[in-house]
Every structure is written in structure tokens, then in C-alpha cells.
């Protein structure tokens, strides 16, 4: 028997489970040699660790109605709620509950978003590909590289053009990738003239097979500014290698202020302002997001009038992952030497200040007229109500950012939603949960389907089964005002 498989003893089937796989029940899995239990959900339950409502049915009296929900502590999400047709019908669930004495209404629906996509932020200084390059999944273009942000690269994936504007394959590859990303699964993306990146919400990116560990604390110049004082006196020159701005201690304002003497160092690349250089090398996946393997390759000859034998030079990348220490010989050529103990600390500190690199995935979609018509007879009033902060929008119970301007275009961090909250239709388009919560009185005023409102307790006995899941502790409670949530 393969020795990396473990035997699960949860039941008499006694499956042998390989690492990364589950047993025949799909409930127990082997995660890195450990037997782990896994499971799904739908109704957010605020009571932490109340546990599954396992009811010893055989010992239960006849009159139990199955109700397990208490007011205010349970929020019905739209995940699995279904949708309606035709559009003028009320949303599938319009639920009332009392929160601190006020009657609240939550309109719950699953919307089909043809106009949707994800924005991905990848914490990396490595060059992933030129801006505007196409990003492919299964060989089809599903999005493009957009701006670089501080220590991160942004990708824009999906959108209506890729979903429905191209070939059938393009549409289904796009839908597939979006669905997987939104549901928390890993997706492999290939960037034209760039890297292959494996993206999974909440996990470090994997760039060309190498897992990214840290994001930089600042550009090379900023790093000089932050650490100049810690280097002063321990080393004569420091070069912080960075794909964007490479910093040089002796020329940098921070070095000047400390009185660091000139060293005669000569950097390749284009000088921006003193001690700051652009384009010292090509973008790549090595030192500081450049393509260099040998840091000396970005240096010219030291100026003999200023440099001196024995000059101590530290070269370090913006994440502290790469570093080398040199001393100048009699001929003023740098020779690599062991990094002195008193510099090791500063290199470690750069690394320590570089936060763990993550991929973050925000779903972005627009609630169009049809979806809003499920909430009110006059869809634009819902928009106005959201604008006026009378109506709270949540996505699977998670808070959303609603863009200013017309319509209800929102973004939500998929990591704050229950897993597998998204579905799809073959159009192709994504199906995402969306909930609108507002006061019952306001709901009436905006032309809501007041006659369809039903109490929370009633859904315990409705046709479809509900699953409950504990609310994520970091999310504000959807039925509560922001101030109250903060106090708790």
C-alpha cells in the first residue's frame, strides 16, 4: 500500500486516502497527511459553534415543527434561493424580522449576471506581463492585465465581452474561470508575453511554478529611506534592487542627510532623482522583480577618484529575499563576502516587513433593472434607496462596496462569502446571491411587494431545505447598523 495514503477510520469502509483527496464519502480528506473533515452551507447563523442541529428524531415527540430559527440571529442569504420569471414577480424570498424593535425586510434573490467579472489583486513584484496583455484560461482570452499597484499587480477578468461577445469556447472558458475563482478554487492563468500564474482567493500566487512568499514593503528608494539609519556606519553603500525604482544609499536624500560619503558607485538604468533609478534591468521573476540573477550586472565600474579598497557594499532586493555583500579589492572590483552579522538583521527586517503575498478576488457585477424589479415595482427607487443608505446590499451575507453613479454596481470580496456561493447558467453568465435589507416602512414606501413579505419563522417549514452556516466573525451583521456591529 502506498505509504503516503492514510486510512480513515471514521466509518467501517476504512478508505485509504491519498494526500489531497477525499474518501468515498467526500467528507473526510487527507490534507498533508492529516485526516480532515469538510462540509457545505446556506443560512448564516450568528450563534457561534452552536453546532449542527442534529435532532435525535426517534426520541422526538410528534409535534416538533422543525423550527430552529430565532429572530435577529438568523439571516437568510440568497445562496441557493433561486430566481423568478417573469421579472415582475416578487423575488423568491422576502423575509421580515425584528431587529432592536424595528421591523426589517430582507429581499433575497439569486441574480444572473451577464455583466460581471472579477478583479484580482496579486501581491507580487514579479513581472507578470505587459499592461493590457490578454490573460488566457484553457487557451481562451478571458481578461487582461491592468494596472500595477503598490506591491501588487491587478488583473481584470471576465466582463460581458468575454462572456457573450466571443466564441462559445471563449464564453465557457471565461465562465468557468470566474466561477472557480469566485467559489474559492484555484485557476491557472497564462498571460500573453508573460507569466503563468495560479490564482486562488486567499492563497499566495504561484508564478511560473514558484510560490510567491512576500510582497515588498516599498520600492527600492522607499526601502533606502526606511532603513538608512539602520545601515549607517555598518556598511558604506547599499543598493536596493527593484524593478520600479532602485535605490542607492549614498546618493539618496536619506543617505545625504545622514552624511553618508560618496562611493563612486555607477548604476545602469535611467536616473530619476538623486539615488533613484528606473529600468536598471528588464522586468522578470528574479531580484526585486527584475530579470537579473547577478546583482553586479547592474553596476558599472566604480569611480577610482571616489571609491576605495575595502568599501563595503550591500545589495538587497525589495523583499529581502535576494541579497549579497561585497567588498572592493585593491583594483576596486567587488568581491563577494559573507554578510556580516550586524547587517543580517536589517536584511531580515526588510523581509519581515514584507507582508505575506496573497491573491484577492473581488466579484464585480451590476444589478440591472430586471433584478431590481424583483424587489420593487419601480426599480429606480431601489437604486435611490441604496444610494441614500436606507437599503443595505449584501452578497451571501458579505458586505459590498456599491459604486457611486447610476445603477447598483457592486464589488464583494469572495473570501468573505460562504464557499461555493456562486453558480452559473449556460448563457453563459454567473449566478450570484444578492440581498437587500431595509426597514419594512421604507420597503413599503419604495413600492416593495409588501404583500409577499413573510416572517423569518415561516421559512423553516417551506419547500426547500435550508442549511445553516456560522456568520463570518469579521463581517458586519447584515441586519444591524454599522455602529452596533462595531460595538460588539
Amino acid at each position: 500500500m502506498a505509504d503516503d495514503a492514510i486510512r480513515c477510520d471514521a466509518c467501517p469502509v476504512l478508505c485509504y486516502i491519498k494526500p489531497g483527496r477525499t474518501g468515498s464519502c467526500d467528507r473526510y480528506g487527507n490534507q498533508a497527511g492529516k485526516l480532515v473533515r469538510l462540509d457545505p452551507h446556506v443560512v448564516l447563523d450568528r450563534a457561534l459553534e452552536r453546532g449542527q442541529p442534529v435532532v435525535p428524531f426517534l426520541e422526538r415527540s410528534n409535534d416538533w415543527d422543525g423550527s430552529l430559527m430565532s429572530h435577529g440571529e438568523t439571516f437568510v442569504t440568497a445562496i441557493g434561493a433561486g430566481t423568478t420569471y417573469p421579472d415582475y414577480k416578487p423575488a423568491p424570498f422576502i423575509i421580515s424580522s425584528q431587529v432592536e424593535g424595528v421591523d426589517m425586510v430582507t429581499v433575497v434573490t439569486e441574480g444572473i449576471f451577464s455583466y460581471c467579472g472579477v478583479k484580482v489583486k496579486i501581491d507580487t513584484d514579479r513581472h507578470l506581463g505587459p499592461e493590457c496583455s490578454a490573460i488566457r484560461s484553457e487557451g481562451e482570452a478571458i481578461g487582461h492585465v491592468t494596472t500595477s499597484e503598490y506591491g501588487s499587480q491587478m488583473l481584470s477578468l471576465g466582463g460581458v465581452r468575454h462572456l457573450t461577445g466571443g466564441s462559445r469556447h471563449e464564453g465557457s472558458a471565461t465562465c468557468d474561470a470566474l466561477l472557480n475563482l469566485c467559489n474559492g478554487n484555484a485557476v491557472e492563468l497564462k498571460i500573453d508575453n508573460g507569466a503563468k500564474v495560479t490564482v486562488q482567493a486567499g492563497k499566495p500566487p504561484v508564478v511560473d511554478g514558484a510560490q510567491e512568499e512576500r510582497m515588498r514593503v516599498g520600492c527600492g528608494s522607499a526601502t533606502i529611506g526606511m532603513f538608512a539609519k539602520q545601515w549607517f556606519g555598518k556598511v558604506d553603500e547599499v543598493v536596493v534592487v527593484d524593478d520600479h525604482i532602485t535605490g542607492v544609499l549614498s546618493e539618496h536624500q536619506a543617505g545625504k542627510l545622514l552624511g553618508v560619503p560618496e562611493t563612486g558607485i555607477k548604476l545602469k538604468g535611467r536616473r530619476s532623482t538623486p539615488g533613484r533609478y528606473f529600468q536598471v534591468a528588464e522586468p522578470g521573476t528574479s531580484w526585486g522583480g527584475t530579470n537579473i540573477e547577478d546583482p553586479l550586472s547592474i553596476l558599472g565600474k566604480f569611480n577610482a577618484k571616489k571609491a576605495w579598497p575595502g568599501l563595503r557594499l550591500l545589495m538587497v532586493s525589495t523583499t529581502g529575499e535576494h541579497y549579497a555583500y561585497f567588498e572592493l579589492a585593491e583594483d576596486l572590483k567587488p568581491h563577494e563576502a559573507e554578510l556580516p552579522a550586524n547587517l543580517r538583521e536589517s536584511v531580515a527586517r526588510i523581509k519581515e516587513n514584507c507582508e505575506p503575498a496573497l491573491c484577492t478576488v473581488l466579484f464585480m457585477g451590476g444589478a440591472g433593472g430586471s433584478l431590481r424589479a424583483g424587489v420593487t415595482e419601480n426599480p429606480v427607487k431601489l437604486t435611490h434607496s441604496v444610494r441614500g443608505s436606507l437599503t443595505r446590499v449584501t452578497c451571501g451575507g458579505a458586505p459590498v462596496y456599491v459604486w457611486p453613479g447610476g445603477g447598483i454596481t457592486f464589488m464583494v470580496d469572495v473570501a468573505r462569502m460562504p464557499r461555493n456561493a456562486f453558480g452559473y447558467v449556460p448563457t453563459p453568465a454567473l449566478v450570484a446571491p444578492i440581498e437587500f435589507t431595509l426597514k419594512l416602512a421604507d420597503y413599503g414606501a419604495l413600492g416593495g411587494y409588501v404583500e409577499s413579505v413573510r416572517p423569518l419563522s415561516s421559512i423553516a417549514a417551506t419547500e426547500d431545505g435550508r442549511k445553516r452556516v456560522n456568520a463570518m466573525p469579521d463581517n458586519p451583521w447584515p441586519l444591524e447598523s454599522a455602529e452596533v456591529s462595531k460595538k460588539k
Partner: protein
Amino acid sequence: MNQRAQIRRLDDGRRLHLHDGPIDLIVEAFGPRREVEAAYRAASERFATVLDELCTELSFLRRACSPETEWPQGAVARRMTAAVMPYSAEYFITPMAAVAGAVAEEILASMISSADLSRAYVNNGGDIALHLTADETFVVGMVERPDRPSLFGTATLASHHPVRGIATSGWRGRSFSLGIADAVTVLADRAAAADAAATIIANAVDLPGHPAITRIPARELAPDSDLGERLVTQAVAKLTDAEVHEALAAGMRTAECLVRIGLIRSAALTLQGDVRIAGELRDSNLVTNRVDERNLVHA
């Protein structure tokens, strides 16, 4: 009663959830309350020993069946063996191919023998045993890809149809498949028969040796799989329309043969968005509604 089995009413207060090891059943009975309670009690009592019974004969049930094979002892094991036996001369098949349907059937049988129900179903992870009395119907939704919650169609089953079993198989599902169908849903007179047939048809939807299909010996994924060193499908890259047609045509030949000889009533085969329907599902007496964008709210 064994300590593992979880028996509980779902939050809706109506359905019963029976869970033990890899067996996960959603049960619902319709009728007078007293009868429903009696049915649930019978189901729970029967359920308590099912997994233990199966496990005592597990090594036998994981072996290929042939017409000469001896028969196992347990009631569920015998249902499984009976369901796969018609295929055993021609195909590689083990009784495990019908385990889900056979368990559903057994639990349903315990319910209708101890209560008077108008309708009932036992859903074992998509393999479903049905009970229908006069003028009752069930609407069954079909999912294109078992790993995704999206209906591609519905079928309405009425009491005058002989169908009492539904099962789905495909490489994306819980069990391994030798074929490349995303899902094959079979309607048959009994659940175990539907389960075995779905396995056979899903295996037949295939493009042998095609480079776009990733296959791995079952043992490498699950060391104790009944499929041994047989190559099971782990990934299927995009196929051309012609290839999709070819693979589905292969599956349809098997499905139509099974319909003709009466082992099944109907089958729906899906592969990369394409659907083929064999048997009476195709005709108007069982209505399938393609769920398309018109049925849903557009954002």
C-alpha cells in the same frame, strides 16, 4: 444502533436526513402525518445497519461480477448484484456500480412496507428511488455538471409511467468514470438498475486514446478503488464539436440498446454543453424543459 449514523429532520421540518459514512440520504414521504412518521421511523431503523451490512461483504462487492458469480448475503448487496448482473457477461462491472441506487431502493422499500404513503423519495446523492401512487407526479431537475448547481432540464414523472428509479453518473461526479460524459442521467424502473446503467452509459461516452483526456489509474487516486488499475477520467480539455458528437454517439448506441432491451426507460447524456436523449424522455409523454435564460432573472 450504531453510533456513527446521523438521523435528523432537516431544518424544513419535513425531510429526513440519514447519514452514515459515505451514505447520505435525503428522504421525504407524503401522506397523513401519522403515516409519514411511521415511514420515517421504519427508514431510520432500516438505515442503522445498512453500512455495517455492506462492509461485511465489501471485498466481494468490489470484485468484478460475472454470470457465474456467487450471490452475496445482505439484502442491499443482493440488490446491487442483481442490478449489475445483466451487464456482467459483456462489461467489466462490480456490484459497487449500483450501491447508491440499491441503498435508496432498500430504504424506500422499508418505508412503503410499513406506511401508507401517496408519494415518497429517497435521494442518495442524486441516485433516487421513487414511490408514486395514482395521479401523483414528481418533477425531477437534471444537472449538467454534478460539481455545479445548475439545472439543464426537468422531467415530470407521473404515476402511470413505470419509472421509479433515477441515477446520474459522470466523470465529474463522486465516483470514478471510465468515460468522459459530464453527466448521464438514467430513468429506469428501479434505482439500482438506473445506477448500474448510468455507469455503463457514462463509460461508453468516450474517445479512446484521445490526447485531450487525462486518465489516471484508479488505484493511484484511491488505493482501494474497485476499478483497480483501470484508467479513470480526471480531466477533459475542450473538444471540437465533431469530437463531442462522436463521443455522445458512442454513448447513445449503448443507451439506445439498453432502452430497446428494456433495462432502462430513458437516458440524458451531456458532454461539454451538448445533450442527447435516448428513450421516452425524448417523446412528449415525459416533458423536458430546457432551462434557459428566459426562466431566470437577469441582473
